[in-house]
């Protein structure tokens, strides 16, 4: 199993407060790994650390060819093939749908490739194609999530990180979005790290599941196995 994304002994926190403790995590290339856990488990902090928004106090973060991302600044991450779909559907509401999408691919030098990916995104997210001139703030929650996902894909990432993509969405829409991740994994070999509070849906689409509790990994197993472990669910996930 090759690692698309490998965390080795990563610790991080805010000032004197340490949130993540010695995290070892390998996200297999071309797989979906779901990180689940209660509120405050450190899930978002984990993504912030991987994407360079937060410097780890210890450990290293590497991607598939061994490149070290530990000290890479956040604005350079897309150039290393790491894209994040932020929490709360981080769409720039003042910009139009098309501008948001284009922004995702702007770092690429090859304009024509970016245009091709844009067309693909409109195919993939058909509602966005109909609203390409609409401002971000006019979109529904589901449309915003599609836009945030489409914009991250515009960067043609190898590693896609998602922070609670189903938060606040209708179950049907969230299932649609999560289902799309499987398709992307199958079609393009994308490596996905998915952070979710919606444990059932997350483990249903993921290949591998990781349970985070108080900043420590307490379980790391195939997703299906994890979903069936009632003891673990009761103890850490509350259902």
């Amino acid at each position: 199993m090759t690692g698309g994304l490998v965390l080795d002994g990563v610790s991080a926190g805010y000032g004197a407060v340490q949130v993540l403790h010695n995290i070892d995590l390998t996200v297999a290339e071309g797989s979906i790994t779901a990180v689940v856990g209660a509120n405050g488990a450190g899930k978002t902090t984990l993504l912030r650390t991987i994407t360079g928004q937060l410097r780890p106090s210890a450990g290293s973060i590497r991607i598939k060819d061994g490149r070290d991302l530990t000290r890479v600044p956040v604005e350079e991450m897309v150039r290393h093939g790491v894209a994040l779909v932020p929490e709360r559907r981080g769409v720039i509401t003042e910009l139009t749908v098309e501008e948001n999408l284009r922004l995702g691919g702007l770092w690429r030098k090859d304009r024509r490739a970016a245009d091709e990916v844009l067309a693909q995104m409109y195919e993939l997210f058909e509602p966005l194609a109909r609203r390409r001139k609409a401002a971000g703030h006019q979109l529904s929650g589901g449309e915003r999530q599609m836009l945030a996902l489409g914009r991250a894909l515009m960067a043609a990432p190898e590693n896609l990180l998602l922070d609670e993509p189903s938060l606040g969405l209708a179950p049907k829409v969230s299932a649609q979005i999560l289902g799309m991740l499987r398709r992307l994994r199958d079609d393009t070999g994308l490596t996905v790290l998915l952070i979710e509070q919606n444990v059932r849906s997350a483990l249903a689409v993921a290949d591998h599941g990781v349970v985070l509790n108080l900043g420590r990994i307490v379980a790391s197993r195939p997703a299906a196995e994890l979903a069936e472990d009632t003891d673990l669910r009761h103890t850490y996930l509350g259902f």
Partner: protein
Amino acid sequence: MDRFLFLTFDGLARGAVLAAFALSLVLIWRAARIVNFAQGAMAVAATYIAFTVTALTGSYWAGLAAALVAGFLIGAVVERGVMRFVGNSSALNPVIAGLGLLMLIQAVLGMLFGNSYRTMVTPFSSNPVEIFGITVFSSYDLFVFACIAVLVGGLVLLFTRTPLGLRLRASAFAPDLARLLGVRTSRMLTLGWAMSSALGALAALLVIPTELGLNPHAADAVFVYAFTVAVIGGLDSPAGAVLGGLAVGVLLSWVSGYWGATLAPIAILVLLLAVLLIRPGGIFSMTKERTV
């Protein structure tokens, strides 16, 4: 009627300069959430450079180019050298830094060039011409309009039609998100300051020869008026700055023409008060819906 038309045209000509200067304040506000109190002094410094270049070369156009380049560089240096290090812990910090910079630049200009008024040449006559018996713009007024229209139009195209403009807007609206998408926001911020400062320099260079005379404090009043225009139009709104600038220019011209120049500042203050009472965000402020 003739007088009314003359005052209106004259007001539009002055308003164009106010519009450009207000737009330069709006650009910085949008990029950095800072009202740059040093903007006037920075523009005057660029104008002194233009004055020197024109004196050395004998060419107004070389001076104009020098003002734009100097304005651009001064903006970049102020951002990289000063404003970047001013903490955001209080909204007052950049204001105080701006005021400090204002005094510093004015003092340095005074030491280098003296505090006396210097006359600057204009490339065209500033005497109004008559068309169908009505006194309207001078050729210099038309030149001012053209310069500002070209620069403002160019900025509009840059911001709305180019990848660089998209990066600049994204950095201004949502810097954290923009960084995640690979935008080097720190460069965009410097560029925003530089462009805004170049625009301010152009406005100062255009208004100083006919209205004010070159002096380290030449842009003080223009800054106050332009700041008022920016607030009236909405600090967030480039269109508001341009339309507000023209409207305030005309209002100033009417008030000075019919009731005397001493009442002009009062009229502006009354207008500012009215806008702040009725629509505090400014007339053209954008509706914001940032939270979901």
